[in-house]
């Protein structure tokens, strides 16, 4: 069956120079990271400063992106929101990578029942389409950002494990592994010191592609009310909070954070395809 990765059809030309879209996307992401780090310095207002007299104000010189229903400045909130919206996917990927790479390497190295167990677990996880596995975990353990991150980490782990397993199987059959074995090095040591570091490039490339998806999933969970809770500032949550104003004709409270999510995910997908092309080269 045809499994299509996001980059399957990206034009391969221009390997030597970076294509313009990648440059723009990369620059934009760097800007977002700087904005998130420097949010207290550049935000014109406190993100939680309520000003009911300026409720749902359009774009003014005081509020460049307008305000939400309780008069909070949207530009400031989007800048502060970038922090949790970027850090949460990072935490989720760290967890998923830790679990996935361990499972995948062990499955490839040991084979046998460990390998069978991994493929059975993957089969059952893949029976849950989309975010349903995450929704099940949240239904059981309650909502909240931590639960969302752990649940998504568990959901992504089998995919990463499968990918790592296929890479590790190819790497394992290379002669240098046998050489270490002959020297009497233990299997664990070979894996931790040599095998996994050699796969790191390809795995990191894969993780960059997954970052956009992780951000999108977390934003979706926050939007549904399963992720970050009310006092915290999160893009997905902001969209949910701004949604009621849309029917009243005030589009900014929902569209500003929504555009931020979409723009960051687009940029990550463009950069991710490029990075995974470069790091996965020769495999």
């Amino acid at each position, binding site marked *: *069956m*045809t499994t*299509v990765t996001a980059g399957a059809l990206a034009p391969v030309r221009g390997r030597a120079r970076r294509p313009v879209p990648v440059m723009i996307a990369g620059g934009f992401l760097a800007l977002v990271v700087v904005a998130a780090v420097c949010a207290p310095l550049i935000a014109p207002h406190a993100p939680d400063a309520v000003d009911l007299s300026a409720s749902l104000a359009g774009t003014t010189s005081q509020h460049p992106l307008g305000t939400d229903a309780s008069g909070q400045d949207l530009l400031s909130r989007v800048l502060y929101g970038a922090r949790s919206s970027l850090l949460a996917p990072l935490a989720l990927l760290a967890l998923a990578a830790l679990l996935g790479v361990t499972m995948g390497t062990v499955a490839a190295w040991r084979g046998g029942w460990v390998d069978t167990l991994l493929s059975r677990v993957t089969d059952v996880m893949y029976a*849950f389409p989309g975010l349903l596995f995450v929704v*099940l975990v949240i239904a059981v353990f309650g909502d909240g950002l931590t639960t969302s991150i752990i649940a998504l980490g568990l959901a992504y782990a089998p995919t990463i494990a499968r990918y790592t397993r296929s890479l590790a199987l190819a790497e394992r059959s290379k002669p240098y592994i046998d050489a270490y074995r002959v020297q009497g090095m233990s299997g664990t040591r070979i894996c931790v010191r040599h095998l996994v570091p050699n796969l790191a490039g390809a795995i990191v490339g894969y993780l960059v592609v997954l970052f956009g998806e992780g951000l999108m999933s977390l934003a979706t969970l926050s939007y549904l009310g399963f992720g970050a809770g009310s006092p915290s500032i999160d893009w997905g949550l902001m969209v949910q909070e701004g949604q009621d104003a849309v*029917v009243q004709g005030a589009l900014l409270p929902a569209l500003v954070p929504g555009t931020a*999510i979409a723009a960051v995910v687009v940029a990550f997908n463009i950069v991710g395809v490029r990075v995974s092309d470069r790091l996965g080269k020769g495999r």
Partner: protein
Amino acid sequence: MIRGLPRRIAGLFATLLAASFLIFAAVYAAPGDPAVLLSGSRQELTPEKLAAVRAEHHLDEPLVVQYGRWLWDGLQGDLGRSFQYRDHVADLIGARLPTTLELVAYATVFFVVLGVGSGVLAALRRGWVDSAVVGGTTLAASVPAFVAAIALVSLFGVRLGWFPVTGQGEGFTGRLHHLTLPAFALALSALAVISRVTRQAMAEAYASDHVEAARASGQSERQIAVQHVLRNALGPIVTMCGLVMAGMLAGTVVVETAFGLSGIGSLLVSAITTHDFPVTQAVLLLMVIGYVVVTTLVDLVHPLIDPRVAPGGKPRSKPEGKTA
């Protein structure tokens, strides 16, 4: 086709059994005593009363026995009663399922027509059309469904007023009118996947020798495109359409919530926020069954469309559009 069939059916049931057990066991392991929830918090809760509630709902039996009872009752259409509405879960789902199925069907029409259409266009007209389609689908795949939903409501619902923003609609055209924006929001990322698969499959088919032979024999480009290229590319396209459609059942969770539609997706969200476990279990189970059955069917049908594919030989793989 026939040879691999029993194995596939057995695999299907094994997966469903494992998934349903996971759904049941997860809720069983949930923190909090279901007996307290069931008896309602207003009454005095004596240990005797709790024990009575447990016995009434068979909560004092071992996990496997409870699971067996749940599954057996579920097979007979009895999915228990909702904690929240005190209604039969089967009735709740039955009332909402048509909306969800209509939404999925409508979205499927959207993504098949537009996705395959744009993919074919990109494969036939190289150059700027191709770049535009690839760029557009990259964009479409990156916009989360709820953001797309709100952007569509803002533009076509509030600003232009072309489509209603609330309600379910009366009669066939009314419902169609009301479901247009939700269906499009649901179809957007699927559309991108299908467009890419179509373009790729067409490009691969174009590169094969028999196309060159057909061209040398003097057939028109139009004839080649339809009879030799599209015909050969149909296998992966149809397969992917089936897989994406199967995954859409889960996508309705977001879209129905965003548009305030009363389907099983929004039912799941409200069941989770109110800790209505019987409804949560039933909706999750229904979505998983729908997904697994459709993906297995697609796998079984694939060799019929494309005889070059060995039946039952390939494992099921997950479609890319993971956004719920």
